[in-house]
């Protein structure tokens, strides 16, 4: 074994070549990039007669984007910071998109056609509060009505032209919370209605030019308000009182306040608590009572009357002026697999302007939001289009009874990713129809040759691209020999599971997680449930989807088992206990279902699958199951072991109690846990040995039970700049999770987080900030096993006097030593991953997700503690790079080349069958996939291998042979004649 290692290791080390690089015409061959925006919160249509029709949206991923209304493509988009949530969006002056973000403290204007930021204004805000953006609908472009913004206790008026703050009013002292700002058209007076401590209604009349308070009226409401509000007309709002059973109409005509109370029980019989729905309808409001949507008309004197009621599953849009004095709104409700879109006039609910029925995919769930827009048809009648947001976050445009376009925006919030194999091709060897005729084959290769010799014209380049995509057969839905075609399973926050094809990124199937217990379970994580390979080959592989009813960790969990080939749910169960941690065990039953343990909040663990066979396997290994929990807030890491069946408490025989085995407590005054990490459990390590240049042997300490923990001083846990170098230090630990023993401790003075780390084989690489140098640093720690260092003698190996076959136990104190080295790195980092290959022979590359949302491939040789300033000749031959103080950023080694994976959150790697190649999938707001060969494809010909050149060479050689043969014959003849 070791000898084979000796032979192989240098071969592969020396074969490691300068990292990933790509020619421009190869972009898009093995990779794809998909752009998303996230679940839409607000939408504003911009459909003027001239120019492109677009819709401006803001989303839960803090994206502001302009979409083409015809095709749903993105004209432009901007991803704001993670803490810069968008509160409101509007269009001012017909040319600027206005966004209010960060709880009403940042106001930005973007140029509508190209998305260039025009101005940005920071507004005062004293505390966290609801914020409000009011952009006047401007009919006269020349007149600049100010934008009014409320947030954090301040009311601002901002000029739409340049973002200048015209005036501001400080309401922090009164505790005044603005609820509505009304600007009657043509008037310079704005009415500001708000509540003081939710018990007093106050109306200010403010001059919109100067900000002067013209009048102020206040009126106390003894019961107090609940805060839910709906404005029904320019001088009336309807609010709900604190008991949620009385609707109060507040009229503030000409600055006078009047209350009018209407108990909901007067409107609807035996009503419970009410809830005001968000759509703004003119002279009407929608209230949710008894799971029904009730439309309440507001009469002239604030009199309320019920005009209609609908079933619960109805989504509505705001009302919209369709004619001179008529307003209409859209409502969508479900019926079986269809949805009904109706547009009604607000004044006459019986007058349905539009009724459309559209077949809808069941896996999109219910309609969450509706945004309506109208247009004038050629026959001067009104046409309507509706933008709807579904439960799975997808965005669809409905027009004329059909789905014009749809965007799978759920993929912008991927929470977990795993990969799965495609089915094997059934009908024996049915090789793809490669090329039709020899002539076409030759033509294609001549084109390729032209391309590689840079003789191709632009048309040829396009033809080559097409040919490559076609001939590779990369989009087939069957397994290929190299393992390049796979399914990427992505679970989204909205609880939908997507299967994406690695070839072109298309959605093969998708499935919405369902639960009996709750309406909308969230997706948490994905596990390989059944991967048949030896026996049970006839079974389809399946995955386990773990979801949760609600965001709280103690909420009950939902399990779903999904067939990977078909995308159908096999079974699902509401497990009745919470899910804190899911532990895949290294055992499978006779049908190759993997055993999983699920730990809940009360300290019990539950075994899945719930079969007696699984139970008997588990009972056998009962003593050997350990796991750990990290309580980051308290700075405690605990190790657990199984104790007994919890039969005393419940009758469930698959439930077990646990016992605490060890604890590591970090002093809370000096250390705070900011990052923990273990090795990937499915990682393959090719060899335990590492050969030094001087033929010395090192044994890697390869253990699956190592935990990397990084702590910082509590002061340094904040952002950069909040702490001085003297106050902060970073400490990293390597902890054995079976015994709780700390194997290694390394302290970095004057450093702070955030720490991004990657753990593979016997090394950890982590990225942190060095406050003294004011630069980012990357440190590598490699851990080696000292106890096996004696097995170097060949005679010992031959005579069997080595301890290589001795069992390893975590209870014996391991003799380990570490090597480490640090380097500077010039960029902030969002995430780090490492490539993984089938056998682990290929050298590794770090995949660094940078702050610019790009992914940099960095050879592991750059983070090798053996690097020295002047490597010896032998070391150079082995591929050791001279030590430099910072890691190189080579632009050609960005695997994302000219793309940005906006909002990058994670990178997942998976091996292909070909040892040289690995799949890389990065997710954030965008998705990106590529195939990497960290040491180049040494085990297969590359795509751009020129068969034509080979053929031509052979032809030339054959011709040369014949010519020379003829020549030599001739010469021989003439010589014989002489």
């Amino acid at each position, binding site marked *: 074994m070791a000898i084979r290692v000796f032979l192989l290791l240098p071969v592969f080390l020396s074969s490691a070549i300068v990292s990933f690089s*790509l020619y*421009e015409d190869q972009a898009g061959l093995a990779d794809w990039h998909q752009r998303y925006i996230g679940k839409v919160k607000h939408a504003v249509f911009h459909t003027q007669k001239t120019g492109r029709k677009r819709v401006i949206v803001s989303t839960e991923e803090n994206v502001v984007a302009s979409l083409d209304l015809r095709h749903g493509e993105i004209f432009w988009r901007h991803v704001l910071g993670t803490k810069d949530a968008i509160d409101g969006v509007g269009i001012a002056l017909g040319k600027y998109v206005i966004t209010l973000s960060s709880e009403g403290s940042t106001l930005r204007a973007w140029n509508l056609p190209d998305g*260039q930021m025009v101005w*940005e204004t920071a507004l005062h805000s004293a505390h966290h509060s609801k914020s409000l953006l009011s952009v006047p609908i401007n009919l006269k472009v020349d007149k600049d009505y100010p934008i009014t913004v409320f947030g954090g206790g301040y009311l601002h008026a901002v000029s739409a032209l340049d973002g200048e703050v015209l005036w501001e009013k400080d309401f922090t002292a009164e505790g005044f919370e603005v609820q509505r700002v009304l600007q009657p058209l043509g008037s310079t007076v704005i009415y500001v209605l708000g509540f003081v401590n939710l018990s007093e209604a106050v109306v200010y009349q403010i001059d919109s030019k100067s900000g002067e308070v013209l009048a102020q009226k206040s009126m106390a409401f003894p019961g107090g308000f609940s805060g839910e509000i709906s404005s029904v007309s320019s001088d009336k709002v309807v609010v709900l009182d604190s008991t949620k059973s009385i609707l109060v109409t507040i009229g503030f005509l000409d600055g006078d306040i009047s209350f009018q109370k209407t108990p909901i029980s007067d409107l609807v019989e035996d009503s419970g608590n009410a809830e005001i729905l968000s759509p703004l309808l003119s002279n009407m409001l929608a209230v949710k009572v008894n799971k029904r949507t009730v439309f309440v008309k507001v009469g002239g004197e604030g009199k309320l009357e019920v005009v209609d009621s609908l079933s619960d599953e109805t989504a509505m849009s705001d009302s919209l002026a369709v004619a001179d004095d008529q307003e209409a709104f859209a409502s969508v409700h479900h019926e079986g697999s269809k949805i009904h879109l109706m547009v009604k006039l607000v004044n006459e609910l019986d007058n349905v302007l539009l009724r459309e029925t559209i077949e809808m995919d069941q896996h999109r769930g219910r309609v969450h939001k509706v945004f309506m827009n109208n247009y004038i048809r050629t026959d001067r009648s009104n046409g309507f289009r509706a933008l709807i947001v579904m439960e799975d976050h997808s965005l669809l445009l409905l027009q004329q009874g059909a789905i014009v376009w749809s965007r799978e925006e759920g993929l912008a919030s991927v929470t977990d990713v795993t990969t799965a194999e495609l089915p094997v091709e059934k009908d024996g060897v049915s090789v793809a129809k490669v090329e039709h005729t020899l002539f076409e084959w030759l033509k294609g290769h001549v084109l390729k040759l032209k391309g590689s010799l840079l003789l191709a014209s632009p048309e040829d380049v396009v033809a080559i691209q097409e040919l490559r995509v076609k001939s590779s057969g990369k989009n087939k839905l069957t397994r290929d020999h190299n393992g390049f075609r796979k399914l990427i399973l992505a679970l989204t926050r909205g609880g939908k599971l997507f299967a994406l094809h690695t070839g072109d990124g298309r959605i093969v199937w998708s499935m919405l997680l369902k639960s009996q217990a709750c309406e909308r379970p969230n997706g948490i994580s994905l596990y390989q449930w059944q991967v048949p390979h030896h026996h049970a080959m006839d079974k389809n592989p399946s995955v386990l989807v773990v979801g949760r009813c609600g965001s709280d960790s103690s909420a009950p969990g939902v399990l779903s088992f999904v067939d990977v080939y078909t995308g159908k749910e096999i079974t699902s169960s509401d497990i009745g206990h919470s899910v804190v941690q899911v532990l895949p065990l290294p055992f499978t039953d006779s049908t190759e279902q993997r055993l999983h343990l699920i730990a809940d909040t009360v300290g019990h663990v539950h075994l899945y699958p719930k079969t007696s066979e699984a139970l008997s396997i588990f009972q056998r290994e009962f003593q050997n199951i350990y796991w750990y929990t990290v309580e980051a807030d308290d700075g405690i890491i605990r190790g657990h072991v199984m104790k007994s069946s919890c039969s005393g408490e419940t009758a469930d025989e698959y439930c077990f109690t646990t016992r605490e085995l060890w604890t590591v407590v970090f002093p809370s005054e000096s250390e705070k846990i900011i990052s923990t990490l273990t090795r990937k459990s499915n990682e393959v390590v090719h060899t335990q040995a590492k050969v030094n240049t001087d033929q010395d042997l090192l044994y890697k300490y390869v253990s699956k039970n190592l935990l990397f923990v990084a702590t910082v001083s509590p002061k340094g846990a904040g952002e950069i700049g909040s702490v001085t170098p003297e106050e902060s230090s970073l400490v990293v630990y390597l902890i054995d999770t079976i015994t709780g023993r700390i194997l290694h401790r390394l302290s970095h003075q004057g450093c702070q987080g955030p720490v991004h780390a990657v753990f593979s084989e016997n090394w950890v690489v982590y990225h942190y900030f060095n406050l003294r140098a*004011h630069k980012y640093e990357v440190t590598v720690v490699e851990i080696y096993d000292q106890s096996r260092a004696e097995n170097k003698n060949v005679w010992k190996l031959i005579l069997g006097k080595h301890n290589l076959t001795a069992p390893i136990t975590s209870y014996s104190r391991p003799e380990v030593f570490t090597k480490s080295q640090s380097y500077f790195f010039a960029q*902030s980092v969002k995430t780090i991953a490492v490539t993984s290959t089938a056998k682990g022979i290929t050298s590794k590359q770090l995949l660094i997700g940078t702050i610019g949302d790009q992914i940099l491939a960095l050879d592991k040789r750059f983070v090798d503690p053996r690097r020295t300033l002047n490597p010896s000749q032998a070391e150079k031959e082995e591929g050791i790079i001279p030590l430099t103080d910072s890691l190189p950023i080579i632009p*050609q080694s960005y695997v994302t080349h000219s793309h940005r994976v906006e909002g990058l959150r994670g990178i997942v790697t998976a091996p292909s069958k070909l040892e040289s190649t690995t799949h890389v999938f990065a997710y954030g707001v965008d998705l990106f996939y590529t195939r990497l060969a960290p040491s180049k494809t040494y085990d297969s010909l590359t795509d751009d291998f020129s068969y034509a050149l080979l053929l031509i*060479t052979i032809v030339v050689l054959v011709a040369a042979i014949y010519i020379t043969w003829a020549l030599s014959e001739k010469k021989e003849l003439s010589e014989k004649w002489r």
Partner: protein
Amino acid sequence: MTQIIRSSPVLAFIALQISFIFFASTLTCTSGSEDSCYTITGRVKIPPSNVIGHTEKFSNVKVLLNGGHKITFLRPDGYFTFHKVPAGTHLIEVSAMGYFFSPVRVDVSARHRGKVQATLTETRRSLTEMVLEPLREEQYYEIREPFNVMNIVKSPMGLMVGFMVVVVFLMPKLMENIDPEEMKQAQEEMRRQGVPSLTSLLPGAGASR
């Protein structure tokens, strides 16, 4: 530095200069904390270039404070502002596709009412003139070398052809130089063995000697 540098596009691209002009102003930062808050204003200037997609590139520039804690964008004139920055030492990074910017260490002084000092962390150059030059332009693709006879020759096929040429044209020359007697001997041996082998052809292989 605010003047646009007039030069040919190529030169402009090489001499791409992005200047940061820092100044800070105290804002009456009325947030709950006692920290006095300041504003950092700078400028990223990219001279006009004829490269397609230049304006698009420009509108996709992001400026990040402290590793993405705050993100802002450029105005049409290239200015950017970070509001409500507490006194202390901060890090500004510029993310622009196609360019590599050095991170900038920014010291906001509490004593001097928000005076800002900037230093490039990569080159450790202090920005006394408040000018930052990008370290380099980034090319994400390998550039294909133009058609070259040497490349063909150097490729494996080329080497094969070359070897054949050598065998075809130089081997006879070598044969000529061989002593005729030796040649005859070799030929005889070949006949005796029946199978021609490469070692016996070569002079000095001397298996028969």
